[in-house]
C-alpha cells in the first residue's frame, strides 16, 4: 500500500501548490502553479493505475500530458498584462 | 340545387379570365340574371345538406322569407351591377360579385356555420371594396373592417355558445348567447351606438360602392335578425330610439351620402320594430319593408351617385343639377322620395302600413308616425335642394347609359310594387290579409307626409340650413387608443437587454416549478 501513501503525499503537495494558484500575484504565478498541479495529477493517474490495477489509466495519463502542455502554451500565448492589450487578471 | 349566390361567386371567378370588356358586361348580366331566375324558381322547403368536419351543414335552405329576401337581393344585384359595371374596375367588380354572392348565400343559409362564413366573406369583400377604392378611404376601410369583424366575432362567439348549449348548428331562434348575437346584428344594422361605421363608410367610399353596400350590408343584418332574434320586445324601443337618433343626426349633415346613410338608420328602425313584434305580420311587414327600402334607398344612392359622377362632389348644393340636366335621375328620385315618404300608391306605403298594423302599443305607433314624419321632413330638404333651390352647378360629363338603365330598372319595380302591392305577396306566397287601399290606411299613410310639408314650409330655414357637423365622440377610438398605449408600454419593456430577458426566463422557471409542485 505504499502507492496509496505516495498518492496522498502528491495530493497533499498539490493542495499546497493550490495556495499559489489562489494567491499568485500575477498571472504567470498562477500558470506555473497550475502546471505543477497538472503534472502532479498526471503522476497520480499513473499511480492510480497501480492502485486499481487497471493499466488503462496510463493511456489516460498520456493524453492528459499532451493536453497539459498545449494548455500551458495557449495560456502563455494569450495571457498578457493589461497594458499590453491582454485581459485583466 | 344550388344557392343563387354561387352564380355570383362563379361569376367572380370567371372574371379572373382575361376576357374583353364587352364580354365582361355580357358575363355580368348573364350571371346576375341567371341568379335572379334561379331564385325565382326556388321552391320553399328545399334544402341541401353537406358533411363538413363533423357537422351536418345545410348551406341551402329555402323558405318564404329567404325566398323574398333572395329575390330582392338578386334583383338589387342585377340593378346595381348594371349600374356600376361601366364605371368600376375589373377587380372591384369581382369584389362586388363576391360580396353579393356571399350576401345571397347568407340569405339562403340553413345553418349557423355557413351563415358565419359568408357573413365574414361579405365583410372581407366589402372592406376591400372600400380599401382599394382610393387613398382617402384607407382609414375608413380599416375602421369599417375592424368594426365589422368585431361584429362577426361576436356572432361567432354566439354561435359557439349556441352550439355548446344545444349541440346543433341549425338556423333557428337563438337560445344561448343572445347578447352576442345582438351585438353582431346591431353592428350590421348600424344600431345607435354601433352606427359609427355607417356614415363613414357610405360617405367616404366611391358612390358605386356605397350603392352596393347600401343594398346588402344592413339588410343582411335585418334578415339575420329576423331569423335569429325575433320577438324581443325591448329591441322595438331600441329601434325607435335608434330611428329618432338617426333623424336628429341626419338633419345635421351637409353631405348627401352621409345624410342618406343616417336615413338608413331610420328605415332600419322600422324593420327592427317589425321584427321585434315577433308576430308573423310584424316579420312579414319588416321583410316587405326591407324589399321596399332596398329599392328606394338604392335608387336614391344611385341618383346621388349620378350627381357625384357628373359633378364630382356630393354636397347638398350639387343636387341642384338634378332637376335641370338629368331627367331620368329626377324621375327616379321623385319616385323614390314618394316611396320613402310612405305616400299611398308608392312602394313604401305598403310595408309601413303592415308594420303599423302589426304594432299594437300606442307608444310605438306614435313613434312610427313620428318616424314617418321625420323621414318626410328630411327628404323634403333633399327635394328642396334638388328641384327648388336655384343652383349654378354645371355638368362635367354625361352619366353613363348603364347607370341610368340600372336606376330605371329599380324605379319601374318600385312603381309596380307601389301600385299593385299584392303582387309581391303572391310571388312569395306571403298572405298578410290586409286591405292596402282602404280609408284608414290611406289616411294614416298620407297624414305624416302632409304634416311634414306644412311644417317644412314653416321651419324651412332651420331645416335647410347648413349645420356645423357635430364632432362625433367615438368610444371605440378611445378604447383603441388605450389598447395601443398599453401595447406601446409593453413594447418599451423589450429594450434589448439580455439580462432582463434572462431574468424573465428564470422567474418563469421558478413560477412554473412552484405552480407544479404546490
Amino acid at each position, binding site marked *: 500500500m505504499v502507492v496509496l501513501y505516495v498518492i496522498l503525499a502528491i495530493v497533499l503537495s498539490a493542495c499546497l501548490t493550490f495556495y499559489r494558484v489562489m494567491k499568485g500575484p500575477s498571472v504567470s504565478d498562477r500558470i506555473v502553479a497550475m502546471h505543477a498541479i497538472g503534472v502532479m495529477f498526471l503522476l497520480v493517474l499513473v499511480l492510480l493505475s497501480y492502485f486499481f490495477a487497471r493499466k488503462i489509466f496510463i493511456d489516460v495519463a498520456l493524453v492528459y500530458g499532451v493536453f497539459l502542455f498545449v494548455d500551458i502554451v495557449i495560456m502563455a500565448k494569450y495571457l498578457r498584462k493589461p497594458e499590453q492589450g491582454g485581459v485583466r487578471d | 340545387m344550388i344557392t343563387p349566390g354561387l352564380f355570383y361567386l362563379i361569376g367572380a371567378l370567371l372574371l379572373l379570365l382575361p376576357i374583353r370588356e364587352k364580354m365582361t358586361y355580357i358575363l355580368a348580366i348573364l350571371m346576375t340574371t341567371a341568379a335572379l331566375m334561379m331564385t325565382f324558381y326556388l321552391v320553399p322547403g328545399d334544402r341541401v345538406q353537406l358533411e363538413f368536419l363533423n357537422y351536418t351543414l345545410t348551406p341551402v335552405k329555402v323558405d318564404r322569407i329567404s325566398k323574398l329576401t333572395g329575390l330582392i337581393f338578386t334583383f338589387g344585384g342585377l340593378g346595381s351591377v348594371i349600374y356600376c359595371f361601366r364605371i368600376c374596375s375589373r377587380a372591384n367588380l369581382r369584389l362586388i360579385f363576391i360580396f353579393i354572392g356571399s350576401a345571397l348565400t347568407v340569405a339562403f343559409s340553413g345553418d349557423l356555420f355557413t351563415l*358565419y362564413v359568408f357573413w365574414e366573406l361579405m365583410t372581407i369583400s366589402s372592406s376591400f371594396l372600400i380599401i382599394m377604392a382610393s387613398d382617402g378611404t*384607407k382609414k375608413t376601410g380599416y375602421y369599417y373592417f375592424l368594426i365589422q369583424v368585431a361584429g362577426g366575432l361576436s356572432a361567432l362567439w354566439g354561435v359557439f355558445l349556441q352550439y355548446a348549449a344545444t349541440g346543433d348548428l341549425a338556423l333557428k331562434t337563438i337560445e344561448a348567447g343572445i347578447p352576442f348575437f345582438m351585438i353582431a346584428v346591431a353592428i350590421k344594422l348600424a344600431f345607435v351606438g354601433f352606427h359609427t361605421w355607417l356614415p363613414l363608410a357610405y360617405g367616404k367610399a366611391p358612390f358605386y360602392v356605397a350603392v352596393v353596400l347600401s343594398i346588402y350590408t344592413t339588410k343582411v343584418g335585418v334578415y339575420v335578425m329576423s331569423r335569429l332574434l325575433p320577438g324581443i320586445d325591448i329591441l322595438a324601443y331600441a329601434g325607435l330610439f335608434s330611428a329618432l337618433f338617426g333623424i336628429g343626426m341626419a338633419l345635421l349633415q351637409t353631405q348627401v351620402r352621409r345624410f342618406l346613410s343616417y336615413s338608413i338608420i331610420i328605415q332600419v328602425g322600422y324593420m327592427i320594430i317589425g321584427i321585434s313584434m315577433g308576430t308573423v305580420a310584424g316579420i312579414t311587414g319588416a321583410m316587405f319593408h326591407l324589399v321596399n327600402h332596398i329599392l328606394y334607398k338604392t335608387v336614391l344612392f344611385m341618383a346621388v351617385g349620378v350627381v357625384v359622377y357628373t359633378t364630382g362632389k356630393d354636397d347638398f348644393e350639387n343636387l341642384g343639377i338634378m332637376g335641370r340636366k338629368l331627367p331620368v335621375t329626377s324621375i327616379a328620385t321623385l319616385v323614390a322620395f314618394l316611396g320613402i315618404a310612405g305616400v299611398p300608391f308608392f312602394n313604401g306605403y305598403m310595408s309601413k302600413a303592415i308594420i303599423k298594423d302589426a304594432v299594437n302599443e300606442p307608444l310605438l305607433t306614435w313613434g312610427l308616425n313620428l318616424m314617418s314624419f321625420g323621414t318626410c321632413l328630411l327628404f323634403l330638404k333633399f327635394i328642396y335642394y334638388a328641384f327648388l333651390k336655384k343652383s349654378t352647378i354645371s355638368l362635367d360629363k354625361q352619366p353613363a347609359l348603364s347607370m341610368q338603365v340600372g336606376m330605371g330598372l329599380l324605379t319601374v319595380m318600385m312603381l309596380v310594387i307601389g301600385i299593385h302591392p299584392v303582387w309581391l305577396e303572391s310571388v312569395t306566397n306571403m298572405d298578410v290579409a290586409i286591405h292596402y287601399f282602404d280609408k284608414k290606411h290611406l289616411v294614416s299613410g298620407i297624414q305624416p307626409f302632409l304634416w311634414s310639408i306644412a311644417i317644412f314650409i314653416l321651419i324651412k330655414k332651420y331645416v335647410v340650413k347648413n349645420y356645423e357637423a357635430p364632432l362625433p365622440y367615438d368610444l371605440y377610438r378611445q378604447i383603441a387608443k388605450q*389598447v395601443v398605449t398599453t401595447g406601446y408600454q409593453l413594447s418599451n419593456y423589450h429594450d434589448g437587454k439580455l439580462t432582463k*430577458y*434572462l431574468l424573465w426566463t428564470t422567474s418563469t422557471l421558478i413560477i412554473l416549478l412552484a405552480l407544479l*409542485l404546490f
Partner: protein
Amino acid sequence: MQAAIWLIILPLLTAFFIGISKVFYSYKLLFPLVTGSAILYLYLLISVIDHSYPPKVYSVGDWGLLGINIMVDPFSGLLLLMIALLFLPVIVFSLKYITFHTHNYFILTYIMTAGIAGMVLTADLFNLYVFLEVSSLSSCALVALKKTNKAIEGTFKYLVMSTLGSFFILLATILTYDLTGTLNMAEISVAFQDIPFQIKSILMAFFIFGYAIKIGLIPLHAWLPDSYEESPIPYNVLSSGLVMKSAVYALIRVLYILFGFDFLDETGMLQIGVVWGVVTFLIAHLLAFQQSNVIRLLAYSSIAQIAYITIGLFVGTERGLIGGNFHILNHAIMKGTLFFVIAIFHYSLTAVDIKDLKGLGFRFPLLSFTFVVASLAIVGLPPFNGFISKWLIVEAALDAGFIYAAFSILVGTFLSLTYYLKVIVTLYTKTDKTIEMKEPGLALKLPTIFLGSLCIVFGIAPSLPLSLIDKIPTFLLDHEEYISILLGG
C-alpha cells in the same frame, strides 16, 4: 420502414456532399445536388407519411429495445407532411434568393432539416435532445448568416436563451435516466408510473421550461423577434414553420407519452398551459401592433399563433388535439406564404419596413393577393384554413370548460386583424414614388403561390389534412397503445 431512416440520413449526406462540392466544384454541382436531393426527399417523405398509420417502429442498429428506436406515427406524420410541404418550396426559393454564403446556407438548411426529422421520428429521450441541439444550433447559424451587427446580436441572444433551455432539458433527461434506467420513451413511461408525484412534477417543469423557451411562449419569447429580424427570410419560413413546431412536437411527445394525460390533469398542467397560451397571445398581439418592421411583426404573430396551438394541445380533448395539430400545419403554410411574399419584396426592392411596402399592391397584384389571403387566413377569417383550425380549437376549449380561453381567442383574432390590416392597407396605398426594383422570377413566385393556394384549398377542403390528423389523438390521449407498439416493435 427503411425509408424512415433515410429521412434523417439523406439531408445529412446532402449537406456533407455540398461541403465537398464547395471546395472542388464551387457552383457547378450546387443546383443539381440541392434540387435533386430535395425532390428525392419529398418522395421519401410522402412514402413515409403514407405508412404512418398504424405506427411502425424501426430499430437503428437492430438492437430493439437496447438501442435507439425510430417510430413513425400519425403525429410525426403530420410534422413530416409539413416538411414535405415547406422544404421543396423553400429550397427552390432560396436557390434564387440567397446570393451570399450560398453553400453554407444550404449545408445548414439541410442539417437543420435532418435535425427536425430526427426530432420528429425518434422515440428515444436522449436522441431527442441530440437532434434538438442539431436543429437549434444550425438554425442559430442560419440567423447569423448575414453577419450584420443585428444578425450577430440576434444570434447571440437566440443562442444564449436556447442553450439555457437545452440545459434544463438535458438535466431532466439525465435524471429521467437515473430514475428509470432506460431512455426508451415507452419504457420510461411504464417505469414512471411508480415514481412519486413530486419528482415527476419537477422533472416535468424542467422539460416544459426547456421546450417553452424554444417555442417562445411569453415571457420566454424575447429572443424570437430578435433572431428573425436580420436572418435570411426563406430561413424564417422554416424557422417558424418547422423549428418552433418541432419544439412543440417534442414538448407534446414528452408530456403526453412520458408523463401521460392523467398526470397532466392531476398536476394542473393543462390549466397552466391554457392560461399561459392566453396570456401569450394577448400580449404578443399587442406587441405585434407596435412593430414597424414587417418581419418582427410576423415574428410576434408567430408567437401568438404558437400560443393558439398550445391552447389547442393543452385543452386535453380529442377535438382540441385535432384543432391544435391542424393549426400547426396551417400556421406553417400561412406564415410560410407571408414570409415568402415579404422575401420577394425584400428581394425586389429591399423593403422590410411597413412604410416601404406602400403601393406594392398595385405593382405585384398576384403576390399581394397571396399576402392578403395568407394574412386573412392567419387572422382566422373564413373561408381560409386558419379559420377552420381556430374554430376547432375554440370549440374544444369551450367543450372542455375553458370558456375564458375560447373567448380570448376571439378577442385575439380581432387584435391580430388590427396589425395585419395595417400592412394590407399600406400595400394598397398608392404612391407617387418610382421605385427601382428587380423583377422576381418564377422561381420566387411559384413557391409563394403554391403555399398561398394551399391556404384556400385547406380552408375549403379541410378533410384533406384532417384525414391524417384525425388519427393523432388516439396515440396521445391514451399512451398505452403507443407504448405497446413501441415495446412490441
